[in-house]
């Protein structure tokens, strides 16, 4: 769709050009009209002058040339002429006509006629002609003419200066369209920046900061932000409720079956089926959780604080098992990831490390050029390189000697992918067992980027599978 800015530019430009053109045309024809009227009035004055002169020398019209002493009448083809036709057809003309005659309407009329005529003998002229009846009853045709060259030159001059003015006004008009567009667009630009900025901090926008035309949009955006938060928290609550609703009965069922199994009943199949139900439940809840993570949430989390919580928890658990847990974390690290998601990742991976380590495990969190790096190491058996891809598969358990669902690593990986972070399995250089290296990318500028399509699709399909 055409951008608002372009729309404003195009429509503003067209409006300015059309109004200027129409204005210029009207002004030009008005001025043209005025110039012609002035010209005709001067022509009329000279016609009157000749009629007056003729009246006094009608006895001897040849004297007319002396009475009318305008030098232009004496200079041949000066552009200003007169011509008088007597009652008997005698022709008297100004010297400027030499032996030429003025053209004119064939039938002279007693009303004054002014018209432009092309004269092959002289040049195009404006002609005023009238049939005059003197006091003695004789009728004369009196005509004056003046070349249009000067009038045309004046018209040309008018047109030129009008066009220059038009161009100047057009430039001003177009510039003001740009200024106006920028000033109208400014609140929208600010809205865009504000949305990006406040989205980060999970704040609402203030309607009072915007013009009344934009304020309803701001209110709608606030509504959307609130709804977004609400949807996420509601689906999480639903997942938690579902977990509670299903897990307690499952626990009861398992306990009853276990008691019965201690007797004579063979309930291995039933217990195995219940194991499958529990595993599927765990997997589905994990998927539900991942579907509500990533780009859907925009909160910022104090990573160092979460690491501190887990350091205390796993420090205590490791100590009970007589294992050593070393923690190194830079203070004040923040990431754009939901706190529960961060803790889900840390919990699952530290749980694995504690389960599999022989006597030592370590957690290192530090800032690297490519983002924040979280390294979880242990001195356990590790995972051979060939099996690492399989280890990431949900439900995969390479070694079933220790209890577990096989979901921890897959859940952590899914969650991290939803945020564009990476998880890699490596050999631990310091402890000799497995090293899980997480790289959380540096914080992105949200406004300029849409979530990558590739991530939205698997999330949707995961949700659809539930």
């Amino acid at each position, binding site marked *: 769709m055409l951008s608002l800015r372009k729309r404003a530019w195009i429509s503003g430009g067209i409006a300015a050009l059309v109004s200027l053109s129409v204005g210029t045309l009207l002004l030009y024809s008005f001025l043209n009209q005025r110039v012609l009227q002035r010209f005709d009035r001067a022509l009329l004055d000279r016609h009157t002058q000749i009629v007056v002169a003729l009246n006094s020398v009608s006895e001897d019209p040849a004297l007319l040339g002396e009475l009318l002493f305008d030098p232009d009448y004496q200079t041949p083809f000066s552009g200003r002429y007169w011509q008088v036709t007597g009652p008997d057809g005698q022709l008297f003309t100004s010297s400027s006509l030499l032996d030429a005659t003025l053209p004119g309407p064939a039938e002279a009329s007693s009303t004054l006629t002014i018209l432009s005529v092309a004269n092959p003998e002289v040049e195009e002229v404006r002609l005023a002609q009238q049939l005059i009846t003197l006091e003695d009853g004789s009728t004369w045709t009196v005509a004056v003419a003046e070349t249009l060259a000067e009038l045309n030159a004046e018209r040309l001059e008018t047109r030129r200066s009008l066009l220059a003015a038009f161009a100047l006004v057009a430039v001003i008009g177009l510039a003001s369209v740009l200024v106006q567009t920028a000033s109208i667009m400014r609140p929208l630009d600010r809205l865009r920046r504000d949305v990006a900025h406040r989205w980060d901090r999970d704040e609402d926008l203030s309607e009072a900061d915007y013009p009344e035309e934009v304020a309803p949009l701001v209110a709608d955006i606030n509504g959307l932000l609130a709804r977004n938060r609400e949807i996420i928290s509601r689906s999480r609550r639903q997942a938690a409720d579902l*977990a509670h609703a299903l897990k307690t009965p499952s*626990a*009861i069922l398992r306990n009853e079956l*276990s008691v019965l199994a201690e007797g004579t009943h063979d309930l291995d199949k039933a217990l195995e089926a219940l194991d499958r139900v529990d595993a599927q439940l*765990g997997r589905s*809840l994990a998927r539900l959780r991942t579907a509500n993570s990533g780009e859907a949430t925009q909160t910022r989390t104090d990573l160092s604080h979460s690491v501190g919580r887990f350091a205390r928890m796993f420090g205590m658990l490791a100590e009970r098992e007589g294992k050593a847990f070393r923690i190194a974390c830079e203070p004040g690290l923040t990431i754009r990831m939901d706190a529960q998601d961060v803790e*889900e990742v840390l919990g*699952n991976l530290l749980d694995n490390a504690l389960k599999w380590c022989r006597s030592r495990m370590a957690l290192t969190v530090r800032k690297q050029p490519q983002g924040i790096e979280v390294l979880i190491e242990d001195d356990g058996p590790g995972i051979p390189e060939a099996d690492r891809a399989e280890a990431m598969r949900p439900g995969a358990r390479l070694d079933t000697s220790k209890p577990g669902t096989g979901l921890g690593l897959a859940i952590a990986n899914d969650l991290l992918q939803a945020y564009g972070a990476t998880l890699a399995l490596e050999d631990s250089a310091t402890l000799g067992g497995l090293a899980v290296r997480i790289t959380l990318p540096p914080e992105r500028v949200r406004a300029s980027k849409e979530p990558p399509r590739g991530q939205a699709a698997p999330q949707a399909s995961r949700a659809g599978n539930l």
Partner: protein
Amino acid sequence: MRILLAEDEVVLCDQIKRLLSAEGRIVDVVHDGQEAGFLGSTEPYDMIILDIGLPIRDGISILKEWRGNGITTPVLILTARDGWSDRVDGLDAGADDYLTKPFHLPELAARVRAALRRSSGRTNPLFERDGVVFDTRHGRATVHGVPVDLTSQEVAVLTYLIHNAGRLISRTELSEHIYEYDGDRDSNTIAVFINRLRKKLGPELIQTMRGRGYMIDGP
């Protein structure tokens, strides 16, 4: 050893109580947060099993209140929520251990034993003295390798004395830890249990401080 079990699912409570009673534990059961908070603050429990999602009051806030009031009883939290955040919240609030539903009952029993052992400072689940061996995990005793039958009350008395070995235990304290909340407490019957234990396990194991109480020598 007297245990408070706070869990709103009645059937699950019955199962847990059955299991723990079989090991000689005395179990008080409550189904809501208010009652749990009250009993936990007023009764001298040796351990508390606390579901986080209790009605009326949630487990975390009850736990915080107990810890704030200086109650150091070991607490094992049960949670149906998957999230690690819930578990860390629980441990941060002062819980000693957590268990996620659905759990295996033997796992719960093992966690309870471990928590009780930690709180008593004992690392070995087996108690041995002068040919008497008592397995605190199952409440089974042998004298010179010969199994001895103990009633559940005898197991309760013996377990409490062993967990508090080296400390003089009054009859009142003993009765508080071997009877249920609404049980018929008669401190005279304590003497009967002690006599029976002496007959079964030999007279030297439990010492009587006349008028003051009983004691098993420290480890």
